[in-house]
């Protein structure tokens, strides 16, 4: 009996998590609980989370602030839209092919951009996104220019197609969960640790066998792949795209999402993307003042919790554990942490 008890005791957290997640999966996506509008906002939040998960790797772990997310999303969205509308491909193969070619493209861009350091890199990534936006707006024959592309098919395999936002939620739920687990896996693997070293002091990292340049390029490629995947999902979800959402100021929103959520934790990125998609909708009733409050809100939140919501939670937990330590008398030399 105690073996099962120790099993439960050991990963109590994962069990609670699994139970709560299954509850969410079955309760949330039906008409009674949530109307179509809120469902759409949550879906958008999950799609943005996929892109922000990429930022978790490059900014959260690697410490490189990049504005290229919107550009990569634009490439992903337009290649899916063109493959499905012009070439008549099914959504899934189109999604896979566009993620593939954008990943290869970001290898090339990563190699070029990471010759630069710090603010130079950030600014070059702004240039990158603006370049892509200008091409998308002006290449009339291919992208249809500012009028965009209509009638992108719904996400689905064969006849199993997502009819409404509730079906989309069920698919996006698993996609978001998969991205969450992948990013957590990276964080625990050698790549995560290497990125941590590169973020905090590149010289020390070089002396510990970490090729800083190559590691940063890998993180850029991962971020590119996530962003392209999110772009494809955005196209299949909105079913109409134009160049406007893939501009520089949308990239800024993604940075705000991860910084507010908590730059050191993937859960924080999820909270950040849901919160920042939900906030403008929630303060919609303020009409003319909504974006003013939105901007001031970002400043206040950055001042109150520079490390984001999860930063606050971690500090709180860290202090709480310290207190627990104090009143515990004996201390084993090295206690194996979870």
């Amino acid at each position, binding site marked *: 009996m105690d073996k099962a008890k120790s099993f439960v005791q050991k990963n*109590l*957290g*994962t069990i*609670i*998590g699994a139970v*709560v*997640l299954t*509850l*969410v999966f079955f309760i*949330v996506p039906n008409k009674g*609980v*949530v*109307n*179509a*509008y*809120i469902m*759409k*906002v*949550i879906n*958008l*939040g999950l799609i943005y989370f996929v892109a922000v998960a990429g930022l978790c790797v490059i900014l959260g772990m690697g410490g490189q602030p990049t504005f290229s997310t919107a550009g990569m999303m634009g490439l992903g969205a337009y290649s899916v839209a063109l493959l499905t509308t012009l070439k008549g491909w099914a959504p899934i193969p189109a999604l896979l092919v566009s993620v593939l070619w954008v990943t290869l493209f970001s290898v090339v861009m990563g190699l070029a951009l990471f010759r630069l350091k710090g603010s130079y890199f950030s600014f070059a990534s702004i240039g990158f996104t603006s370049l892509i936006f*200008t091409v998308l*707006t*002006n290449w*009339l024959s291919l992208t249809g*220019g*500012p*009028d*965009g592309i*209509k*009638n992108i098919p719904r996400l689905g395999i064969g006849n199993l197609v997502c009819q409404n936002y509730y079906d989309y939620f069920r698919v996006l739920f698993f996609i978001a969960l998969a991205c969450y687990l992948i990013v*957590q896996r990276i964080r625990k693997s050698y790549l995560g640790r290497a990125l941590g070293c590169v973020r905090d002091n590149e010289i020390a990292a070089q002396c510990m066998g970490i090729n800083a340049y190559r590691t940063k390029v890998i993180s850029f490629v991962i971020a590119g792949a996530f962003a392209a995947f999110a772009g494809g999902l955005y196209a299949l979800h*909105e*079913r*109409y*795209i*134009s160049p*406007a*959402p893939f501009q520089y100021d949308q990239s800024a929103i993604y940075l705000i999402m991860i910084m507010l959520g908590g730059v050191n*934790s*993937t*859960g*924080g990125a*999820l*909270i950040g993307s*849901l*919160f920042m998609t*939900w906030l*403008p*909708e*929630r303060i*919609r009733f303020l*009409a*003319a003042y*909504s*974006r003013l409050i939105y901007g001031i809100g970002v400043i206040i939140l950055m001042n109150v919790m520079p490390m984001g919501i*999860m930063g606050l*939670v971690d500090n709180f*937990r860290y202090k709480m554990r310290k207190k627990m330590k104090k009143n515990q008398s004996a201390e084993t030399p090295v206690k194996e942490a*979870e």
Partner: protein
Amino acid sequence: MKKAISIILVCFMIFGLAACGNGGNEPAEQGTIKIAVIDAFTGDKAVNGQYSKEGIELALAEINEKGVLGRQVELIYEDGQGKETETTNAYQKVISEHELDAVILDKYSSDVLAVEQFVKENGLPTFCQGSSIKIEASDTSNLYSTRRSDAGAGGSVVAFIKEQGLKKVAILHSPDALGQSMGQVVVDGLTKAGIEVVSDQQFANEDQNFTNYIAKVLASGCDCFVAIAQTTHSAQIMIAAQEAGLSQGENAITCIGNSAFVQQSSIQNALEASNNWYACTAFSPTISMEPTASWIKKYNDTYGRLPDMTSACMYDSLKMLANAMETAGTTDPAKVNEALHAMTDYRGVVASYGYQGTPMLSKAEYVCHIEDQKSIVLQIVYAE
């Protein structure tokens, strides 16, 4: 333990989101007639939201004096910021939170095209002010626009140039949907008419300084300059043209603009630089023909400034909707759509409207000429 807490927190977040915000839906047929208005009330294009709100409020006041079918009309404003994602979000919110009878959208074609899929699904009569050719080609039967398509507007520009007997034309157009589609129509029309297009330039959204573009137009040795832009840039183009001696002075040439050039906001900013410009427009604040002139006076008295085309279009949209509901005798969407399809000659403030098989209802346009900051109507161009 660390992982558990973050997952739980995440789920509460989703729950928190879901629980709030599914408002109740009142039953249809009694109560007020609910019409949603989605436009850019914040962000870079907020100037349009302001003009359209003022225009539609005027119409609301007039309609609610005697009501429609004995019921009052209620407008529900939602902010789309002139961007597609926000506009689709606003549309979804208003559709799922209210029992609507009709929807009125803004003048940005990409916004209208973004929500077109939902408009087709719910069948509500939907007005917009977009003029893109893609809207004209749309097969959504319950979508209407108070504008002529860019093809129409472009056509009247070409007709005017042919009539003036000009030979070499230089074109400068904006990078957005209006600029690109209307620009293309004008270029095709001119080449078909055998008139030489000496230069076709497109400026960038962030551009503030147009001196170089105008310099290239001067260097192209053209005898006619066509400019297509939104109101945000039209004033600056007129100022640059005046400085270069293109529109005024001894070797000035004919300068023709699209509707934005003759709107109140551009003339007000360009001041004397707007003189001597021609424009093909659906609306101009100094038209002397009834019923437009008295409406303009009423707008000026209420708001202390002259109306923009957006305000006039929004006014017409609401009035036409109310008229259609009156003729149909019900607010049932299918019947209202039928009434709108049957409409042949409705005299609005902007133009006379009639259903011609495409969403584009407007049947006429004016060619105006600006003299000491007033636009005088030269001729009316009817849709062929």
